[in-house]
């Protein structure tokens, strides 16, 4: 039976073991799918498994929406102050700047989208929960003013927990300020598209977010006036499954469309061309 006993040679690995550092992996917050960060990034931070749209930064949206090398950032020098002398606000601002950069909770951009010049504002949830204080209001007002003067469409990507408490009633007034600007834009027939991402609640949802000529939302985004926790507290019961998601709002007639991140640019482009009387983008032919 000796022929049965084959000499066992230690198997050589066919290739060098791939050294993937532990921190190169990321896990989807929704379904637990684990993949290389690289893969998430290439997929615009949408989970390849379940399509969960992960939260991304303002600059990422600029890259997604705006033509390459066509843009410059505007109003970078606007800085929050502490108008009320609110406890710990200066420290919180310092921390937010260290963690999220010095653009406050919104990035203003001039650039082109599918060849069309636009004014783009992208809120950044990483900066104090995307809260709207005087700087956010002023940056939106200036973007709108730019759109008004040049007749360039305005696009705003919303991500916010609401008004910035630390600026008190002045932050509340930013709701009126941004809405007043949008009314001017509407009268001059300059198109405005609002894109709602996770989350869009409070003072932002109750002002410019809900005033778009077209209102789009990313799948699964939580959108509402009051946050889910507040509602739960008020009514003393659990919320129905899927309440306040983008799909729920679409169903209730509050949105025009729920749009996958990869289709955002083409959808916004198509809408803006319709609303500004421009021909269809190349690649669109009559049937």
């Amino acid at each position, binding site marked *: 039976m000796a022929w049965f006993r084959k000499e066992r040679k230690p198997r050589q690995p066919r290739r060098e073991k791939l050294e993937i550092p532990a921190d190169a992996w990321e896990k989807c917050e929704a379904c637990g799918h684990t993949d290389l960060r690289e893969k998430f990034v290439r997929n615009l931070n949408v989970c390849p498994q379940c399509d969960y749209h992960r939260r991304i930064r303002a600059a990422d949206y600029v890259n997604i929406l705006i033509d390459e090398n066509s843009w410059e950032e505007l109003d970078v020098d606007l800085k929050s102050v502490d108008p009320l002398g609110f*406890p710990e606000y200066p420290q919180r601002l310092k921390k937010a700047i260290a963690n999220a950069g010095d653009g406050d909770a919104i990035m203003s951009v001039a650039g082109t989208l599918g060849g069309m010049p636009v004014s783009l504002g992208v809120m950044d949830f990483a900066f104090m929960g995307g809260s709207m204080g005087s700087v956010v209001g002023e940056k939106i007002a200036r973007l709108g003013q730019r759109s008004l003067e040049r007749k360039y469409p305005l696009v705003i990507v919303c991500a916010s927990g609401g008004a910035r408490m630390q600026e008190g009633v002045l932050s509340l007034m930013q709701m009126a300020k941004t809405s*007043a600007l949008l009314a001017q834009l509407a009268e001059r027939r300059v198109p405005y598209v609002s894109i709602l991402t996770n989350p869009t609640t409070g003072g932002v949802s109750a002002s410019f977010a809900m005033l778009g000529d077209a209102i789009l939302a990313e799948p699964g985004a939580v959108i509402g006036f009051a946050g889910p926790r507040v509602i739960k507290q008020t009514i003393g019961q659990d919320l129905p499954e899927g309440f306040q998601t983008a799909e729920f709002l679409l169903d209730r007639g*509050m949105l025009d469309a729920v749009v996958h991140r990869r289709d955002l640019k083409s959808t916004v482009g198509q809408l803006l061309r319709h609303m500004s009387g421009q021909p269809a983008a190349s690649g669109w032919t009559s049937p």
Partner: protein
Amino acid sequence: MASSTTMEFEKPIAELERQIDELKKTAGKRQLSVSDEIAPLERKLDALRAEVYKNLTPLQRVQVARNNKRPFTLDYIQLAFTDFIELHGDRLYAEDAAIVGGWARLDGETVMVIGHQRGRDTKENLKRNFGMPHPEGYRKALRLMKLAEKFHVPVLTFIDTPGAWAGLGAEERGQSEAIARNLFEMSRLEVPIIATVIGEGGSGGALALGVADRVLMLENAVYSVITVEGCAAILWKDGKSPEMKERAASALRITAQDLLELGVIDEIIPEPVGGAHSNREAAAQAVHEALVRTLDDLRRYKPDKLVRRRREKYLAMGQFAE
């Protein structure tokens, strides 16, 4: 929320009022004249009221603003206006009794009055939802504003709400959109708008009736981006203790004086000694006087100039560095 019990700091006032009442009762029974004894007590009562109300803390003002003995929108309509006829419904979904509105006359001239309406007792509060509107309330308000604009009639609003309602139906029917739409439309309404904060001005739910050419505010009213309880709960994980609420009330700068300094309101309407609830007629008289005077002033602007000035005012709001 609204309280009917005597506010802690008003207890000495209530005690003195009780003494005077008792004295009057005994006097009535025995048919005695006690005016000599009562007169000094009443003088003392006035002095006490003045003293207490001179030194209110911001949190105490919140309590005064929320007190349900305070005059509400319908009280002012009854006391400061004539010929009121209420209009109902948003023509889209429902009638919301948390906001009332209709045609009325101020000094004989037709105006559109619209305001949050709270309830004095539980039954009325169920009907009025504690003055916390659903989207249909804001849409009714907007309908009435557009109606006023159609007939070139000024709009006078009264603000008195803890906030817009946060519930399932309100969210489903677009609370955010309803509020946003009002801000948008009020910024371009081609008739004079005067908003008066008479009690609690609670965040977006208040502002949805508050975009105006002039914003007036009663001396003890408050106006804030968040409730003091909510603010204290978020910042210090404690929305219940009086110390934390007092801290939040001071930090948020919510009193009429604060808002005047911040440039958010235009005028403070003085309240009678002891607050608007101690003399509703006098409070309504002061509101009437301020509204007539302010409206007279606004009538000199043509519609386009009015709108331009209103827009410029809101576009200039906020403080930042550059």
